[in-house]
């Protein structure tokens, strides 16, 4: 990494091979892996490395990113076989010299690591609330009416890892069911049955196989499987 103001200290670097799945419809099609080699310091994330590779080795590399701190949800991909946020994954912490990067499964692919999120939002209404009541702060009796954004950053990791989504593509998937369940808690008692009915359709909650992989990979602690279990309890009364 270049040092901008001269106050950087020399830092140890490791040489890492990045095996990145490339795909450009009609051009690199079918997809294939391409390897890039990069010197990586202790603090660099997979996203920092993708930025470096695009900047100095291949400006045509396509990946999604925006916030760089687990708020936007765009950078999820499959890193050494596991769904993770590229912006939170420190390369040294992976403890390998080769990092393999592939796009999320179960999504239409745009190019390289970028997937199209249209399908993800099919079952999540645009108007569903993103704000919720905040938890009280340590030392405070209540939240004082404060609101905060929901935990789910709509990254798609849970959809990619879900065996039920892979086996039955019409399945709504964990993120949409968790969003629906959150929305139920914010609407009026009259609107709740309609939402519950929506979760109970054959390609909704009943299609979940309880693999719990969604809760395992979720980077922001949504635990979608718990929301699905709650919906199931409500349905079975």
């Amino acid at each position, binding site marked *: 990494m270049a040092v901008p103001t001269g106050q950087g*200290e020399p830092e140890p670097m490791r040489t890492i091979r990045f095996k990145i799945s490339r795909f450009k419809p009609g051009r690199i099609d079918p997809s294939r892996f391409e390897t890039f080699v990069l010197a990586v310091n202790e*603090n660099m994330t997979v996203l920092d490395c993708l930025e470096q590779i695009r900047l100095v080795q291949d*400006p045509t590399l396509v990946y999604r990113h925006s916030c760089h701190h687990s708020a936007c949800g765009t950078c999820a991909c499959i890193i050494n076989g596991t769904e993770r946020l590229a912006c939170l994954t420190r390369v040294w912490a992976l403890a390998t010299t080769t990092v393999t990067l592939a796009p999320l499964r179960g999504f239409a692919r745009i190019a390289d690591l970028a997937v199209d999120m*249209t399908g993800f939002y099919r079952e999540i209404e645009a108007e569903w609330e993103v704000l919720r009541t*905040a938890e009280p702060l340590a030392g405070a009796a209540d939240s004082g009416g404060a609101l*905060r*954004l929901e935990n789910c950053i709509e990254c798609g990791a849970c959809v990619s890892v879900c065996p039920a989504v892979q086996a039955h593509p019409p399945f709504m998937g964990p993120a949409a069911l968790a969003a629906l369940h959150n929305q139920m808690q914010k609407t009026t008692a009259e609107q709740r049955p309609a939402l519950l009915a929506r979760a109970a359709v054959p390609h909704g909650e009943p299609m979940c196989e309880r693999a719990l992989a969604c809760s395992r990979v979720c980077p*922001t602690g949504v635990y979608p499987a718990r929301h699905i279990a709650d919906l199931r309890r409500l349905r079975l009364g």
Partner: protein
Amino acid sequence: MEHVLIIGGGVGGALAHDLTLRGFRVTLVEKGELLSGTTGRHHGLLHSGARYVLHDPAAARECWEENQILRRIAPQAIEPNDGLFVALDETDLSFREPFLEGCAAAGIPAREISVDEALARVPGLNPEAKAAVRVPDGSMDAFRLALPFFATARANGAEIRPYCEVTALERRGGAVTGVQVCDHRTGRSETIGADLVVNAAGPWAGRIAEMAAVQVPIQPAPGVMVSVAGRLTHMVVNRLHPAGEGDIIVPQRRLSILGTTAWLADDPDRVTAPAAHIRRLLTLGAQLLPAVRSLQPHAVWSASRPLLRTDPALDPYSISRTFDCFDHAVRDRVEGLVTLIGGKATTMRAMAEKSADLICRKTGRNIAGRTRETVLRPYRGYWRQAVP
């Protein structure tokens, strides 16, 4: 109607929205994902404007006005919990009066509250605090605050092309007549003709200007941000002193974001987060909220401010945060190119409006802007409409 091509998917999204509402045909190209430049990666402060009252009253007023408009037209991704300006020592205290006067002059509803009340609202606040002023700051999800502009522009017919990088400007005689792009989705290059090209490339605006052999007064001024895991406050906590480094903590979801440092850079791409900056932010953040001391960084990142350079010798904290829009026909005798520079994410709607006004004057059209009143589509609408 004229075809306007916008380079840059940050504030450019707000311009695409404004121009489509006025009836222009619009194409927006962005080299990466939408909002992958500065507009997606800042602190997430919805400015009340109070940060600027001591040195930049014009920016302060602009921020407060836009803060109120955004709450109306794009409320979905704003945590509306206000902010505090806190004095920690005697020097900070000496700014209390000018700060309150500055807020009053800018029309920002600021109110001094007792330190006890501040501690009741933010129990983690440094108990040594000497004074606290409450202001209408907010937090935002930067990506989801800006995406509604793209969603609405697209629904109204704008063509939005992410992963599409401008590699050259098309020129005929003294005029810019379009752009050459490489569409990284397919690897193909193409030429897109346009009646007018708008350079909204943020910190990269100087690169686009060079393609037309003109100069723009842009000064990339990067800054480092550190997030820690744990929501330490619901209100934004600012240090009551003239803008400087490490003087703000912005809550968002279950994170607290410490910002920021600033320096002046030549290359907006070579922007890193030196370890010294990270340590400094943690130390300064712990002065405001001592619990920061016990937390590990959750993420560290940096972004480049596209500041409008008025005087190259200026200190990066005091360069004006206001914006400007240049018609290169007037400045450089190059027709067909407009550059917009500066501003804040909070003021993107106003920047877009001012630029669209200029575009109307240039094209001889008299169409009023309507973005002040037009409620935007929810951000998910960007994907929930059929791809055109």
